[in-house]
């Protein structure tokens, strides 16, 4: 349990950092880390597909992709810091979390028909039989991710060619 709490705290911290950091690369790294932690959380909570999906698409593909491309691109001008944002965001974030906690508490009480977690073995079957379109969608996302990699890295290869 404590591991999970630690992971959750890590998730929150990384997310906040991703939002607050002004350096794009660092922000991207934080986002990747947050996604990674989330993926691990999914795994630990018995949702390996979701975990794999999270890590592969969000953490793996997109964030890394951005990280790399941003790193490869010369930086633009500095973004001006705003004190207001620094104050406002944590404020709202904490508020949000607080509300979240309250709501979740209610939620857990209210949810009546929480379905049993599908068996790991049967999951593939369910996925195929019941949620074919989801699968198609996920394939699409991954495919889009791959294409995005191709697209975003084309410049470098072009540069290399030149």
């Amino acid at each position, binding site marked *: 349990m404590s591991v999970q709490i630690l992971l959750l705290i890590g998730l929150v911290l990384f997310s906040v950092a*991703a*939002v607050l950091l002004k350096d*794009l690369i660092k*922000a*991207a790294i934080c*986002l990747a880390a947050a996604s990674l932690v989330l993926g691990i959380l999914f795994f630990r909570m018995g949702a390996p597909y979701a975990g794999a999906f999270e890590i592969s*698409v*969000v953490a793996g593909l*997109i964030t890394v992709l*951005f990280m790399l*491309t*941003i790193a490869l*691109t*010369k*930086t*633009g001008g500095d973004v001006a810091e705003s004190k207001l944002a620094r104050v406002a965001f944590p404020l709202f974030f904490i508020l949000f979390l607080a509300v979240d906690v309250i*709501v979740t508490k*209610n*939620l857990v009480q*209210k*949810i*009546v*028909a*929480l*379905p049993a977690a599908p068996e790991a073995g049967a999951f593939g079957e369910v996925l*195929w*039989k*019941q*949620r*074919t*379109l*989801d699968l*198609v*969608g*996920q394939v*699409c*996302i991954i*495919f*889009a*991710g791959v*294409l*995005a990699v*191709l*697209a*975003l890295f*084309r*410049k470098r290869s*072009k540069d290399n060619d030149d």
Partner: protein
Amino acid sequence: MVFLFVAVPLVVAGVLPLLGKLSKRVLPDILSNLTFLFLLVYAATAGRQIIAGGPVSQQILWFGEPVQILLGLDGLALFMLMAIALVSLCAGIFSIDYMEHYGAKANYYALFLIMVAGMNGLVLAKDLFQVYLFLEVAAVASYALVAYGLGYEELEAAFKYLLLSVVASAFVLIGVTVLFGLTGSLGFEAVGRGLQELPAGPMAALCAALFVAGFGLKAALIPFHAWLPDAHPSAPAPISAMLSGLLIKVSGIYALTRIFFSVFGLTSLLSNLLMGLGVISAVVAALLALGQKDIKRMLAYSSISQVGYIVLGIGLGTPLGILGGLFHLFNHALAKGLLFLTSGSVQMATGTRNLDEMGGLAKRMPWTAATNLVGSLSIAGVPPLGGFWSKLVIIMALVQAGRWPYAVIAVLASVLTLWYYLLIQRKAFFGKIEERWKDIREAPFWMTAATVILALLCIGVGIFFAAVLKSWVQPAADVLAQGVTAVIPRGR
């Protein structure tokens, strides 16, 4: 075959990168535009017949075995499919010349097609999770497309887009999860029924709030809009046109509308909430647009403002309001697509997006200027263009529903709209030509062709508004209106 709307672009997208090795330009151009054309023609011809007997759901056979691919087509979906096909065809045609210097066209078209497939899938989806999934499909493709220029600015914008979009997805996902938890199902109808049976008012309301925030983010309603003015201008012009013209509407407004009308039912609370958001967006974004120097940023803010109008109309929830909202969605898709495309032409010719540096371009770029004017006036709601009729219907609906304050604000916001569009006209096109632009040239043929098609559509819709309204928009509005009557008795 409803599935074709998703499958065809996907398959073509899969083939394109391979074919791109063979032919870097011509083949991707032809193939992808043919795909868009096919989608358009198919929607226009077959779509009507499919839904002739009412909304349909179709299942797919996979190697003789039935698999659960359930897609639903009704008037609203067909209307959206038409809009998507129309604008993407024009954007596709525009890309033929415009994307020349970006390189890797095959890749670009593939992403483009995936985005279209994602939107089509979203439109046809019949359950909540699918909505989420296709939302992500379109979104992921659009992240890459926004960053397609690979400059620092583009990447930053795309990253910002990604960040906020992920938040949106999270909101939506949480909402979906809670609903799933509450009702044990994900299909629209099943969830709707489940909600009716459950005494779960507050929880459902919470989900509704989450959806408003999530889809509001996607639709860039104020205060969820901040990503859009960065993301849309940074993208290549045809993509800006797609994003502003379609993506925010499909993944934002359509999804929101669909879920609210088919699942929750539009209670007066939701109605007021949506109208409030809509009116704030319409006014604030119009004011923000007024201050922009960057033509595409201005257009982006304008999109937010117009989305506000659409939400205002649909949120009103009366049949007339929905009709107006949907019609405005369509008109805005056409006009904003057109405007972004022309801004692309301008950017290509002058190399700048800064309005202060332009001036008198109409002299050298008459077609671009003329089509831009048509688009501007259409969005500003100047008759006899399409935008006028949709705004008129929205305002009529507002007045009929006795929502005078909203009507007045909507009217005044349209003056603001005209104001900043006149700024574009004055600074970019209408005026004495600047010395430095003496030698610029009109946009290449395909770009011009695309803009002209859209401009003609804007005019045509304006002139034949009755036919368009009757044959396309009314069936779509009926779907929603029926949803309202079906669900409202339950609402408070």
